[in-house]
């Protein structure tokens, strides 16, 4: 589903590359933690998958396509196969929960009928069936992250990328979010989660890829967080 072949990403200016000859393979339906210190290259790797960046050398394959040479006009179609969740939720404050989720469908041209069917289903899946009319600021952090996950999942992407999804949440709420990500993974969606949350990684054991100074230093099928910060 995601393959990096000797990927190096160098940003302008001096210094070491953000990613250095990284090769990795993530299969369809896997749940993978991407761990490592700040600056280890986690975010760069995620942005390469989204084709927000192009590698300096090497190849990135996503959903069977080599995306580093993909024409710009094809990128939106690629992104429809990828859902993204962030630490800071990134909800639209002037839209209700339902409108926030529906927005992801409206802007890619889904019909009103489709939206009316899929959005309530997705809200039910994330446990917010009765909160569709609320505004984001009326919700708790955990609920806001659930809305963000609903928005990322509403188009039923093949891949869900989560960048520190529990970073702003208390441990109990984080467990709820992890269960939800687990449910989404169970539908066959590949989940790649960058995290610093060792409690979560150790509790919900999955494959762990550890990056350090832009290199893969550990890739365990059923790993733990591995280092303390």
């Amino acid at each position: 589903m995601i393959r990096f072949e000797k990927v190096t990403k160098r940003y302008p200016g001096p210094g070491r590359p953000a990613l250095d000859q990284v090769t990795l393979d993530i299969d369809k339906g896997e749940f993978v933690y991407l761990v490592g210190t700040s600056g280890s290259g986690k975010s760069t790797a995620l942005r390469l998958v989204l084709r927000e960046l192009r590698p300096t050398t090497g190849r990135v394959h996503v959903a069977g396509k080599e995306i580093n040479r993909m024409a710009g006009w094809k990128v939106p179609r690629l992104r429809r196969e990828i859902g993204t969740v962030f630490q800071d939720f990134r909800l639209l404050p002037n839209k209700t929960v339902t409108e926030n989720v529906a927005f992801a469908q409206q802007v890619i041209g889904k019909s009103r009928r489709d939206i009316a069917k899929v959005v309530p289903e997705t809200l039910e899946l994330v446990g917010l069936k009765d909160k569709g009319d609320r505004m984001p600021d009326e919700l708790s952090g955990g609920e806001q992250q659930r809305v963000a996950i609903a928005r990322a999942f509403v188009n039923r992407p093949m891949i869900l990328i989560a960048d520190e999804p529990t970073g702003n949440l208390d441990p109990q709420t984080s467990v709820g979010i992890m269960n939800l990500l687990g449910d989404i993974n169970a539908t066959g969606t590949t989940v790649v989660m960058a995290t610093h949350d060792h409690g979560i990684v150790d509790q919900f054991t999955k494959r762990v890829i550890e990056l350090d100074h832009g290199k893969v230093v550990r890739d365990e099928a059923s790993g733990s967080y591995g280092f303390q910060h």
Partner: protein
Amino acid sequence: MQLRYVFTELRTGLRRNLSMHLAVILTLFVSLSLAGIGILVQREATVARDSLGDELKILVNLCTDDDPSHSPNCASGEVTADQRQRIEKEIEDSDEVASSTFQSKEEGYQRAYDQAKRSNTQAAFEGPDPVVTVERWPAAYWVTLKTPEHADGIISALEGLDGVSVIKDQRKALGQIFGIMTVLKYGSWIGAGFLLFAALLQVTNTIRLAALARRREIAIMRLVGASTLYIALPFLLEALVAAIVGVALAAGVLAAFQHWGVEKALADHVEFLPWVDWGDYTQALFGLFPPGIVLLGPALTLIPTLLLTRKYVKV
């Protein structure tokens, strides 16, 4: 493509940036009005040249039967073939002349009739017993000079020739009129140029602000796979709305200028000049070269919007 979001965003965008949009519209309106007036003045110069000749031309009217000038040159009545040959030779031999064309009675009459019709003063040409007829209209030579300053030699040579009725030398008067028109034309184009540049900067600022106000939406749209066109569409439509309003206001001002300025004032007071009509007004609006305001307005807002949105909403 579902356009509901686009139109909602368009409404929101227009409301949110109302003062900026008003500034763009007003600047566009004034600059397009000036550009339109510049085009009308240029058309006026063409119309005037077509009918009166320019400052390089003199008109040599030949004698008719019962010539109204009562010139001694016309004592023998209608100009004869021999007389015409002499006149022609004199023109051809002159160092001051660049070229000349002969205008028959019929051509001259038709030209005068067309002009009269243009200014709605064709009564003398019509009716059962018209004052102006083909027979009474003189044949003529249009003589084009090499330079407007040197014509004394040819004028004095022709003045004494049999068969020459009147020499119409409007170099000075026309030179002044065309001079004024040139100043007006370039003045309004330079003014329009500055203001159009100001409009361009305002469009740029408006888009920058709009992109800033929508940065969250844009970021989400990019992430969920909205196409660049879909993301840029509200910006383009906002620019188009501003352009349409600006063009409509300028078209109104130009129409008012044509109606009250040209037809009701200038045409009544300055009768010797033919004036631009509604056909020329249409040219100022829809012409291709120079581009009319209907092309200019949208181009000035849409092109920078396209370029800038590519920068701000790049996927």
